[in-house]
């Protein structure tokens, strides 16, 4: 495929959202048109068919993470799951204490839910990760207090792709009798999750990051030992009272199928993605003055976050509009603020501004990666040609020592 025929722009924003796999869409459509019953209608076959499909999907979601289907609660997405777990968990066990531990590089949905709990009289510790994006276990231990009720840490970071040591953090939580919630929205289909072994109490999932539809997610709520949460939405008592509201059957079916495909194809897919990642990494780091954000080993290969020194972020995005990428998290890209995740790693504002998240996935081709490398090389060259900072750097000026006329 040459560049003229290539569908523009090339999609390299899989961490933001994935397309619905055609096989998933195919499974969903009959549940929009034919088996459209309300799964809560227990009185007729339309409702029963819907309920059967919902329960089958629940089994598929459970299988991917080796959980019991009864431990899976449907939600409208990972954001709701995170809210439900953090608020519902810390509220239910508030007699233990009102202190929450999280990390400053968590997704906004986690940070904002923790902030809400602070508003309600809880205290929170936001751990600063190491420069490689990982949490130092000793620092975590030091943050634990007798009144710590809940810890929430994401498995795979959405911006920089690093994988936290969930098992060790979970074990520390168990020793200290702390509820442990894990946001795994970016992890499903990318890393193996075995909830029978992992010491995790609550875990959030999303469909649309794993080739399923938007608007559907799930929360794992452990049964043994049994974890309880306070419902945030009340009503018909769906999902055993933990989450009321009519379930969207077709979306649940889509999530089930997406997770089934992930379970079956993950190993093979990861191998392929890994090769693409290596190719992209090699190509991009050939460019002078580039910095990879996040640990290079403890990471998913689907994500590559790179800062390009001496070029400005927004003009960089403009220059590479033939590839669809994110600068920082999609949820903050509307604002001009530098990514709070990269800031937390200790990156300067300039490097945070000029960071690009390339995220690759199921439909990314080798030729897409090659095109991207060429495009980025060319555009970085052009922007640096324009950049007075690059000129100064090349002339040997120490930019740290320049006195800038602050604007």
């Amino acid at each position: 495929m040459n560049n003229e025929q290539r569908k523009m722009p090339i999609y390299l924003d899989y961490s933001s959202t994935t397309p619905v796999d055609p096989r998933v869409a195919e499974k969903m459509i009959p549940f929009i048109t034919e088996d459209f019953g309300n799964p809560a209608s227990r009185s007729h076959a339309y409702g029963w068919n819907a309920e059967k499909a919902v329960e089958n999907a629940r089994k598929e979601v459970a299988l991917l993470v080796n959980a019991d289907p009864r431990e899976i609660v449907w939600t409208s997405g990972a954001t709701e799951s995170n809210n439900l777990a953090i608020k519902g968990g810390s509220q239910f066990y508030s007699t233990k204490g009102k202190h929450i531990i999280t990390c400053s590089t968590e997704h906004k949905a986690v940070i904002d839910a923790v902030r809400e709990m602070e508003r309600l009289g809880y205290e929170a510790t936001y751990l600063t990760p190491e420069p490689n994006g990982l949490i130092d276990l000793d620092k975590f231990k030091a943050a634990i207090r007798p009144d710590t009720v809940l810890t929430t840490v994401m498995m795979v970071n959405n911006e920089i792709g690093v994988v936290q040591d969930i098992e060790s953090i979970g074990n520390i939580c168990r020793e200290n009798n702390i509820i442990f919630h894990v946001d795994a929205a970016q992890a499903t289909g990318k890393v193996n999750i075995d909830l029978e072994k992992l010491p995790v109490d609550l875990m959030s999932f999303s469909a649309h990051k794993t080739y399923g539809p938007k608007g559907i997610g799930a929360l794992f709520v452990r049964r043994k030992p049994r974890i309880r949460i306070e419902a945030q939405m009340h009503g018909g008592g769906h999902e055993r009272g933990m989450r009321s509201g009519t379930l969207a059957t077709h979306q649940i079916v889509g999530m089930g199928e997406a997770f089934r495909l992930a379970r079956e194809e993950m190993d093979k897919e990861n191998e392929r993605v890994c090769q693409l990642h290596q190719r992209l990494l090699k190509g991009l780091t050939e460019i002078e003055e580039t910095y990879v954000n996040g640990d290079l080993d403890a990471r998913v290969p689907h994500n590559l976050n790179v800062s390009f020194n001496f070029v400005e972020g927004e003009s960089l995005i403009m220059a590479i509009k033939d590839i669809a990428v994110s600068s920082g998290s999609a949820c903050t890209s509307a604002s001009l603020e530098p990514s709070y995740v990269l800031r937390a790693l200790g990156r300067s504002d300039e490097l945070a501004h000029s960071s690009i998240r390339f995220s690759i996935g199921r439909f990314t081709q080798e030729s897409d990666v090659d095109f991207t490398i060429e495009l980025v090389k060319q555009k970085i060259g052009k922007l640096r040609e324009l950049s007075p900072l690059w000129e100064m750097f090349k002339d040997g000026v120490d930019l740290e020592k320049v006195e800038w006329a602050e604007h």
Partner: protein
Amino acid sequence: MAYSNKVLDHYENPRNVGSLDKEDPNVGTGMVGAPACGDVMKLQIKVSDAGLIEDAKFKTYGCGSAIASSSLVTEWLKGKTIDEAAEIKNSAIAEELELPPVKIHCSVLAEDAIKAAVADLKSKKK
């Protein structure tokens, strides 16, 4: 961010990119902004013995609007006297490029760059 066609044109085909010899007594250099703020503009003007600006060059680290603003002023500067140059207002730049409100500061920066270059030149002439 929706940019006007004029911004896109200057961004895609920036005019007068480059550097002049800053030690030259006939060259004034203005460097404004800061990397931490996301914009640094370097603007240089060279005046003839008759006092007219015969060349202007720029380099800009910044967003598309910042690049376009500095590119545009290098076009405007040529042929002007330095007093006329100092008259260029940010509002004229913003209007010409149809800058959205969040990008007005780019035109302000360009005006500051002109003033800084003119001041540098004047200090050399003293």
